[in-house]
């Protein structure tokens, strides 16, 4: 069971490395989107510091959505998804393995880039570690929630736009508590509650999202 799970994760990582500009594009999008703000808002340190957490979180949200469309699409088109669903292995676990690989190739690079962008936005140094930790919990939830959308749009034309309409509203709670955790850290307030809530989202998404995605995939394969 674990062996097969690892096999799917390592195959997806392998594919991402070989054919993927995906990780690179996601990080570049993230960086560029955040860099636009000092240019648009102006270089005043106070204003940038005030909006830093929100800007970085929103950019991370959009960046993580960018690559979601391809999560199941390629496997669906070449017939791999059919065979994966016929493996002696729950489809829910297949989904979880693919989400793990997706997070490792797109979520993790965002964590690495985020503190650098925080410097650019004049964020108080107290917020850096909290930002990375909150993003770690948050992006994992985003990948899981996004998998449901990615499964639902299979086979539809213009799936990318539909995906953002489906998924962005569901990202809002993660955004609210993610930004709030960083703001609390910068302002010197306790942030345990925000982290507990972000952790709660992740724990809720972990069983629910693979289950919902698998149901959507079965529907798409009929």
């Amino acid at each position, binding site marked *: 069971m674990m*062996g*097969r799970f690892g*096999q*799917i994760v390592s*195959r997806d990582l*392998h*594919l991402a490395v*070989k*054919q993927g500009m995906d990780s690179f594009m996601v990080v570049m999008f993230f960086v560029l989107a955040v860099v636009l703000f000092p240019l648009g808002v102006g270089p005043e340190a106070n204003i940038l510091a005030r909006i830093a957490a929100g800007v970085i979180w929103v950019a991370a949200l959009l960046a993580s959505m960018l690559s979601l469309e391809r999560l199941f699409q390629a496997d669906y*088109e*070449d*017939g*791999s998804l*059919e*065979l*994966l*669903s*016929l*493996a*002696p*292995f*729950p489809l829910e676990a297949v989904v979880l393995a693919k989400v793990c690989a997706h997070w490792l190739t797109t979520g993790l690079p965002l964590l690495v880039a985020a503190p650098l962008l925080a410097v650019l936005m004049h964020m108080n140094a107290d917020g850096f570690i909290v930002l990375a930790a909150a993003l770690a919990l948050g992006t994992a939830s985003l990948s899981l929630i996004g998998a449901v959308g990615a499964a639902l749009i299979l086979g539809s034309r213009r799936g990318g736009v539909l995906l953002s309409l489906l998924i962005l509203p569901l990202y809002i709670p993660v955004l609210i508590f993610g930004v709030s955790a960083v703001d609390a850290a910068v302002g010197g307030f306790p942030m345990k509650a925000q982290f507990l809530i972000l952790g709660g989202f992740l724990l809720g998404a972990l069983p629910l999202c693979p289950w919902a995605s698998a149901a959507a995939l079965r529907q798409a*394969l*009929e």
Partner: protein
Amino acid sequence: MSIFTGHELVCIRGERCVFSGLSFSVSSGGALVLTGPNGSGKSSLLRLMAGLLRPAAGVIAWDGEKTTDEPELHNGRLHYVGHLDAVKPVLSVAENLNFWAVLKSKTGNADAATAAALETFGLSYLADVPGKFLSAGQKRRVNLARLSASPAFLWLLDEPTTALDVKAVAALEAAIAEHRSGGGMVVVSTHARIAMDGAETLDIKEFSRRPDPRYVDQGKAA
């Protein structure tokens, strides 16, 4: 001695009754050839047998137990070869095949089985070639090589000879004969002639020409 049966199956696709009242039975060592004109429901029947589709009515059973009760158990004993070859363009032939073999195997190691399967279908010289350089016939052979790379009782083959040359068809016939002599069973849909001793033929056209009004109405309601 196992027996794979379907009883009074009804298949509805997009409000249209494809076939109704169809029953079949295959036992260890047996072979069933599905014939019928295009669109008569051969592929649909094979997808029903694989569990990718659910029958609108009727029961598919293995040794008398409904396959839908334990889908993963059923997945473990079948190989399905559909129209799509599930060959990843950036992975080599050996990597492609090895992934599916490990996914189906119980031990988590299938290197020897993969090499043997490549040999059987005359793919050894292509082992290191990436999937994107393969011709349609070569891709189909990679797909068929999955059959030999991991053991399964039941082979469900949907037009397996498409794009194959004479030699590859002979290799497939030999693989089927060996599989049946070991107690395996095969269900094939085909327009071409595949040599199989003592194979039974099921003409789906006989079942598609008499739509049962009850199920047609049911299809419209859904």
